């Protein structure tokens, strides 16, 4: 199913932002909010894994219900999971479309990978003390 994704701040994401490699940060930034009706249409239950594909790439997230969202819209906190989907186009402003990302959401297996695994996927070398 197609949705419009917008990303934004949450207090949980903000609390964990100084420790981006922690499970708390992963849990705070890899949860996709959807309306209960859209979840029902997509055959999803709270906590299910979904594969989200956007113009920037694909990422596996878990889903949770948020009855306050507009229908057809999904929300993801700021962070590397959202940015795996975000395109680089800035329309000559320097600012990507963090709040208007067309995505495809489908049921999936597994759970969100760690931030290090996301970075490794992009060619990074995780730090090990």
């Amino acid at each position, binding site marked *: 199913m197609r949705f*419009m994704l*917008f990303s*934004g*701040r*949450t*207090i949980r994401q*903000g*609390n*964990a932002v*100084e*420790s*981006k*490699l922690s499970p708390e940060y992963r849990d705070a930034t890899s949860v996709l909010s959807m309306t209960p009706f859209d979840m029902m249409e997509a055959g999803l239950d709270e906590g299910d894994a979904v594969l989200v594909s956007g113009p*920037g*790439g694909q990422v596996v997230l878990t889903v949770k219900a948020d009855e*306050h*969202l*507009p229908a057809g*819209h999904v*929300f993801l906190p*700021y*962070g*590397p999971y959202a*940015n*795996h*989907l*975000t*395109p*680089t186009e*800035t*329309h*000559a*402003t*320097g*600012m*990507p*479309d*963090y*709040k*208007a990302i067309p995505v495809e959401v489908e049921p999936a297996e597994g759970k969100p990978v760690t*931030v*290090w695994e*996301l*970075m*490794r996927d*992009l*060619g*990074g*070398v*995780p*730090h*090990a*003390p």
Partner: protein
Amino acid sequence: MLLKDVVCPYCACLCDDLDVTVEGNRVTGVDNACDLGAHKFQAGNRLPGPVRPTEKGWDRVSREEAIGFTVDMLLSADRPLIYGWSTTSVEAQSLGIHIAEEIGGVVDATTSVCHGPSILAIQEVGHPGCTLGQVKNRADVVIYWGCNPIEAHPRHLSRYTMYSDGFFLENAFKERTLIVADIRPTESANVADEFVHLKRGGDYAVLSALRAIVRGKTGSIPSHVAGVSRAQLLRIGEVCKNAKYGAFFFGMGLTQTVGKYKNIRNAIELVDELNRHTKWTLTPMRGHFNVYGFNEVCTWVTGYPYAVDFSRGMAFYNPGETTAVDILARKECDACLVVASDPAAHFPRAAVEHLAEIPVVQIDPVVNATTAFCDLQIPVAVTGIDAEGTAYRMDGVPIRAKKILDLGYPADSEILREVYQQIRDRKKVREVKPV
């Protein structure tokens, strides 16, 4: 030991009334801070010293080697990018801009993915700004548009707006009217007197409708504008016109959505219209600690607020071309110095991919997502915790942050000063060599 009036190093509210308890060179208590600020004081995850990746893992290197490596990288690059700056002091920011000028590089800040579009709008139509003190003492109508201060700036309402009594407002909660405009009912919307529930991408149209209403052109307003009823628009228009003093705050719900800087231009022009009736001001809800400081310093030094390219031997500014995301997405830069930010976590995937292909040095206190792309990371003190320095609040008021701990880390400005000095020394050698 109890330290009074400590400045919070988290967001651009720069709350300067924190009580911090320090015992044995460790923070053991934080009072008056919000949850976000308290977490920052107690965060760990610090690197013990400069590190670089090798085939066997991550090795420690000395400070001298680290600075030498950074200087080599910057001097040997054809198109270096220097990026970050939002969580450090203006002293460090000034040095970073001077380094970029010395090496003919591009210097950009997190502004470009935060309130960069706000600056573009302000450059077109001006900034009807004020200090937060004016808002606290005078504003009887407050608008939060496309922002959610309860989650992003948790003390904004209690220090400056709804829950803060002021000189002309003895009972602020009763005397102020709060209007929140957003595409979903947020926590902030729940405490508003009036919630304007917009359709996504409808900000420009609703702002235009309000401008028309304030001008008296009510007949041209259709029954609904981007999901907002005509009746509500007319009601809000009257509330705004009848305000003694209005304060319009906005966030990335305007800067990062469709229309970008044109939305902010329209908001400024609405404030302009309202100023024909009464007094209104507009303030961006800037996010990071000192993201505004970079714009101030960069403007003093170069004439431009961010995204400055020195490759022509002069300052050149063209957001969309000289901004960090665009440069990385075009795979244009061949080295990157990251200071006090984490682009790998906050830039689109395709922009981050280029960081894996070029040498990267990061000057930052903690291990973060960008560490994975570093050829070297130099840990430094956190400005406002174990380093002092000046930062600019979201309304442009400079505030001096204290050093409350001594953990033995250098300030970013110390490292950058050494890098700058070595670059200048080495360039002098190059210049005299042919003679």
